């Protein structure tokens, strides 16, 4: 079955360092990958989308890459801040065009 996996359940890093989160997909070839941020008690919020023909996309301190050979997307937050602490979810459309599937998320904690 089509799967999106985020291998790290939790990641703790020092403020100012770059946080790197991983998303792997199996058994299909998504046309794009999305990244969402979720704060406790709230719904996920869309951050970035990267298409299969794009190697890299940036938005302020965020950078996303898409490697179709490795079947992987990396999500980077540079110059991380405690306010970046949240759960980050990777998502993509399944082969059924109506469904979007999510990874289980990585909980990122930035310590001062």
């Amino acid at each position, binding site marked *: 079955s089509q799967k999106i996996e985020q291998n790290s359940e939790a990641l703790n890093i020092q403020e100012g360092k770059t946080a790197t989160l991983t998303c792997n997909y199996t058994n299909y070839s998504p046309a*794009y990958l*999305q990244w*969402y941020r979720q704060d406790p*008690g*709230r*719904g*996920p*919020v*869309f951050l970035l*989308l990267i298409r299969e023909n794009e190697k890299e996309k940036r938005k302020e301190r965020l950078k996303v890459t898409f490697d179709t050979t490795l079947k992987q997307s990396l999500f980077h937050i540079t110059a991380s801040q405690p306010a970046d602490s949240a759960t980050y*979810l990777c*998502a993509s*459309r399944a082969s059924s065009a*109506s*469904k*979007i*599937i*999510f*990874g*289980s*998320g990585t909980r990122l904690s930035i310590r001062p």
Partner: protein
Amino acid sequence: DAGITQSPRHKVTETGTPVTLRCHQTENHRYMYWYRQDPGHGLRLIHYSYGVKDTDKGEVSDGYSVSRSKTEDFLLTLESATSSQTSVYFCAIREDRGPVTDTQYFGPGTRLTVL
């Protein structure tokens, strides 16, 4: 927030009782989704709708039904609630026009506890 509201925001109910959760959107989006979120499982799709009276099952649809009689409202019903349905339920719409097609916008969630 794409004009999505959910009601109620919190509910405690007893096993065996029927429960209906409501999702309301103000922006006329065609696609609406119901997810549940549990620790260790992430977001799992329960049911979705691609238009008025058009619905389909997701990966965890057993024990749930949905209805969409108007574009703006998508109802999720637990016919006979069980403790395994204790969860946080999120409604979402999918952007299907403009440059950010396929982006999902989520409601604030409903925390349901079944005793």
